[in-house]
């Protein structure tokens, strides 16, 4: 079997970036589009080839490492630029390149009229490179390169329309909040390398049980630091605030980066380091609790948002919470499974939303939509598929993965987590269908201006929607439950997460209870859907009444619990003011004042000494005599 040439997968988009930089505007729009999509498409092809090659190997040999070169070696520390292909990274590269390719294609349509067309694809390709590096890296340090690289691209793409101050601000916020996470990640890495001696996965994971006392403080702190990094990248409490703002970027970006791929890097990383987390039960609990809390918390905010993309953003945060919930309860496979299905339907949702926004001439407010089903039939259809998928109605993809997570939570005894997850599922179904109803059903609230230009999107946008809709429908079938020895997806990941994988720590449940769980979750989803239809289609006054009944709650939700404002008032402004003081007062007055003070002191001495120099002979003689007397007194004293 030939080597799968892993390095070429990230190298292709990077090559496209370089080529684009080199050729500049000579490339033209068509050329740019072909180059960008072609590179990612080729990457996808290589990814498929690599995955097939991997699958062709016997189960125990499903781990291929390719060392490109030695990156750095200092003393006993060394790190390579090396790529690892195993079932987990195979899944990831397929998702990343696959969804990425579709979004590239979609973008050629969506961005067709943007003056910075080339720059957009440059960033997008750069992102693909970084993301692929992230998932293919065979050590944490290289992963970190990709990790920060995607952060950079996210920063650039959020601020793509840089003349919009809000976009620039959002980009900066994303980067900085991510940096806070990276701070944790970095320290976590330092801890791991200091005590295990390596950041290379194999070496690290095999050394960890010897280096750390299971459940000890060191491993707990280290993993929590890593998790802090994950919360930053994957927008979990407390570092989630950047993601809603990130919607300032172009919609394909939201789809690719802030839904399908980058934000899941945290989940990937936690899953990748599962053996470390398993050494630290407390950390796992934290992961589960943070995941569950985020899932619920973001869902509640999603209830009251009116910006179509923001609803989706909070939904993303919430869904990412589910993934962490899965990891936290030990169901890593389920987390990755949900990661994959979520990539499909959330990308679809965003792209659909993009299509809507595109059609409505950049209108994003749900209150000025409605009744679009007839005008945008393809968009409507695909969006509906995605909405059902995220709501968790069988046999759509979301159902399988979410059910898996809830099952894992229940089976591992995290009943509270399970309950929160279930509640989240109701809310998810509700706000997603609220979005659907407000946008596509009912009467039109579209402004005249927009009405006039209303049109269905071009094929370059519709085709990716269609493909993704199919994936959202069938993507979950590889995870059909109730098969002996786990379902195919889980078996595929077994070499990574170990035999019994996700269920390693779980009590097997009786089939009856499993069925019951499924029924409960389906019913929950349906409940949400029905309520959404009731409140927003059948009886719109219901929503209003609810709003009026609990105005405080509503205000709180609309303002997202005032978290941004709170952070601004409690952290940002004080820091800013303190820095001002530090500069204006401490630095200029005290520190520099001391320095200049020495100067003034000497000048003062100088002025004083000059006073003695009166120009009178008498004074001079007096001082001369004084000197003689002083000398005499000195000797007298001896």
């Amino acid at each position, binding site marked *: 079997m030939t080597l799968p040439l892993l390095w070429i997968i990230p190298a292709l988009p990077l090559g496209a970036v370089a080529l684009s930089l080199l050729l500049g505007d000579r490339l033209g729009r068509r050329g740019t589009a072909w180059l960008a999509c072609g590179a990612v498409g080729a990457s996808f092809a290589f990814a498929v080839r690599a995955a097939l090659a991997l699958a062709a190997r016997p189960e125990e040999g499903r781990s291929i490492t390719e060392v490109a070169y030695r990156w750095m070696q200092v003393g006993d520390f060394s790190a390579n630029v090396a790529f690892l292909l195993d079932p987990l990274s195979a899944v990831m590269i397929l998702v990343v390149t696959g969804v990425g390719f579709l979004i590239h294609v979609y973008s050629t349509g969506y961005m067709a009229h943007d003056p910075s067309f080339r720059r957009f694809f440059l960033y997008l390709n750069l992102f693909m490179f970084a993301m692929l590096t992230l998932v293919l890296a065979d050590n944490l340090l290289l992963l970190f390169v990709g990790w920060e690289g995607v952060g950079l691209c996210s920063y650039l793409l959020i601020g793509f329309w840089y003349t919009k101050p809000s976009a620039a601000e959002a980009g900066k916020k994303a980067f900085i909040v991510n940096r806070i996470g990276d701070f944790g990640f970095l320290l976590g890495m330092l801890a791991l390398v200091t005590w295990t001696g390596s950041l290379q996965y194999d070496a690290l994971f095999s050394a960890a049980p010897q280096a750390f006392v299971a459940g000890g403080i060191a491993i707990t702190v280290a993993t929590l630091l890593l998790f802090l990094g994950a919360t930053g990248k994957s927008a979990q409490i407390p570092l989630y605030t950047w993601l809603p703002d990130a919607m300032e970027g172009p919609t394909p970006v939201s789809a690719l980066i802030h839904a399908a791929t980058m934000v899941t890097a945290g989940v990937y990383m936690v899953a990748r380091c599962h053996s470390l987390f398993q050494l630290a039960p407390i950390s796992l609990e934290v992961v589960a609790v943070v995941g569950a809390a985020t899932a619920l918390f973001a869902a509640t905010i999603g209830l009251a948002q009116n910006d179509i993309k923001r609803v989706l953003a909070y939904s993303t945060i919430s869904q990412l919470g589910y993934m962490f919930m899965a990891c936290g309860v030990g169901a890593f496979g389920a987390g990755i499974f949900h990661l994959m299905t979520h990539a499909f339907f959330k990308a679809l949702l965003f792209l659909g939303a993009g299509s809507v926004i595109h059609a409505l001439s950049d209108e994003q407010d749900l209150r000025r939509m409605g009744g679009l089903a007839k005008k945008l039939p393809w968009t409507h259809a695909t969006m509906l598929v995605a909405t059902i998928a995220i709501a968790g109605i069988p046999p759509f993809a979301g159902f399988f993965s979410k059910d898996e997570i809830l099952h894992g939570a229940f089976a591992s005894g995290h009943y509270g987590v399970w309950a929160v997850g279930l509640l989240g599922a109701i809310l998810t179904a509700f706000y997603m269908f609220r979005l659907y109803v407000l946008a596509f059903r009912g009467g039109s609230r579209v402004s005249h201006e927009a009405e006039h230009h209303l049109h269905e999107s071009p094929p370059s946008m519709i085709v990716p929607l269609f493909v993704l809709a199919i994936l959202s429908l069938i993507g979950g079938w590889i995870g059909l439950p109730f098969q002996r020895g786990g379902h195919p997806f889980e078996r595929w990941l077994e070499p990574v997460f170990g035999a019994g994988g996700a269920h390693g720590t779980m009590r097997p449940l009786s089939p009856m209870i499993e069925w019951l769980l499924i029924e409960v979750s389906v019913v929950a989803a349906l409940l949400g859907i029905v309520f959404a239809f009731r409140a927003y289609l059948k009886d719109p006054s219901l929503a209003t009444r609810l709003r009026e009944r609990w105005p405080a709650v509503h205000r709180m939700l609309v303002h997202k619990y005032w978290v941004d404002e709170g952070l601004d008032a409690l952290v940002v402004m004080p820091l800013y003011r303190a820095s001002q003081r530090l500069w204006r007062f401490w630095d200029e007055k005290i520190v520099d004042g001391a320095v200049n003070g020495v100067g003034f002191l000497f000048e003062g001495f100088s002025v004083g000494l000059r006073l003695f120099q*009166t*120009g*009178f002979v*008498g004074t001079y*003689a007096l001082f001369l005599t004084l000197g003689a007397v002083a000398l005499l007194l000195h000797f007298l004293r001896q």
Partner: protein
Amino acid sequence: MSAPMAVPLSWMLALSGVVFVIGLIGVLVRRNALVIFMSIELMLNAANLAFVAFARQLDSLDGQVFVFFVMTVAAAEVAIGLAIIVNVFRLRETVYVDEINLLKG
């Protein structure tokens, strides 16, 4: 050994010291350049007295020779000093040192 000193050396020294200090005080308290100069001459003479007294005590001529040179030096000094003072007076119409302080600070 010389003939026994009728006047003890210490008395002579005390006298020379007193005269020296009187001259010194003159320099310090007077403003007239000429008087200051005269006071300086007093100081020099006090030193001369000390020299002579020591020479007597030590029975050596060195001291006396020294005094002779000092007198010569003093003569030259007076010539130059008075010339300078006269010149100052010609330009400024004063010999009060307190009125002569263009240069200071």
